[in-house]
């Protein structure tokens, strides 16, 4: 079982790491391709902050439902709306990246 887990992890890492390795061999010379590097950081920042914001929203919604179960419908409505609006911030980032990096 442990061997299988190790193998799976290694295979996963290989599958993740090989394409950049090949790419580095192909285009070794020349300047750093920032267009390929910055989207990773941009997306990481956007997803991280969105995750934090959504977690805060969800946490307080859960708390208020626990305190006042009668208002569940109204809270759920506000929560979905807020989550969607927060989520679109990360989606803007993704859309920019998608349009910029072909």
């Amino acid at each position, binding site marked *: 079982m442990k061997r299988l887990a190790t193998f799976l992890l290694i295979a*996963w890492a*290989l599958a993740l790491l090989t394409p950049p390795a090949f790419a580095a061999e192909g285009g070794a010379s020349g300047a750093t391709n920032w267009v390929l590097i910055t989207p990773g950081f941009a997306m990481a920042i956007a997803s991280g902050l969105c995750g934090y914001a959504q977690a805060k929203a969800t946490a307080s919604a859960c708390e208020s439902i626990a305190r006042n179960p009668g208002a569940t419908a109204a809270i759920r*409505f506000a929560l*979905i709306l807020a989550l969607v609006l927060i*989520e679109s911030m990360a989606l803007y980032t993704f859309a920019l990246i998608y349009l910029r990096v072909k």
Partner: protein
Amino acid sequence: MEEQHLLLVTKLVNWLAGKPVLWLLTALRLKVKNPEYPIPNHMAMELLVFALAVVFFLWLKRRLSVDRPGATQLCAEMLLTNPMGVGAGDLLGDIVGHDGKRYLPMIGSIGLFVLLSNLISLIPGLESPTAQSSVPLGCALTVFLYYNWCGIRKHGPLRYSKHFLGPVLPLAPIMLPIEIVSNLARLLSLTVRLWVNMLVSELLYVLFLGLTLALFLSGREASPFWNILVVVPLFGPVVFIALHIFVGILQAFVFTLLPIIYVSGAVAEEH
């Protein structure tokens, strides 16, 4: 992206209407990417969704009955009013008020169109038109024009444009640009939200199919025993189809909810 795989539906629609469309596009001096098939996939899929919806709802309308509502009728009524209070009719009643039913035909149609467009890619051989940016943009433009038109019809052009000046007149020079930009941002946010959500849920599936396939292939090279790993690429990415269904329904709900909020903002009485 440029070389798109043509669906069977696209070929059929192009066979039916390709020549006149090509002629029209050439007459308008627009660049045609693929002169052999001038109608792209998402356009053909839009037409298919439209045709399916019209046929289905005409068929449903003919057999509507108060005494013996069938299962289909009950399901369709759930879209309008349901116990959770998330149907289009419920939302209009809650947010706009008692005369909210006036806006139901337009908003319900857009919501249903988005719902069907999101879910139609579950059928193999078809794809979601909403995964192309121009289709959500069309829906968002319709919503944008519709709620502004509703406001103008309710309040008249002068009183409606006073809406944009804010509550206090001295602040108007600051409020006007903010209001205009925030209204235009609604257009952008509606478009990007729907488009990217559908795009991402398709990309996720492809991405994880690729990853699991790489896992399977590298395992098979190591020893024939790892052939059993074939179940991973076969069944693993199916999770993302379930996610796609969820996201599709949620985005259709959002695309019904936000227009309702915009309409209610446009027709609200000032106090």
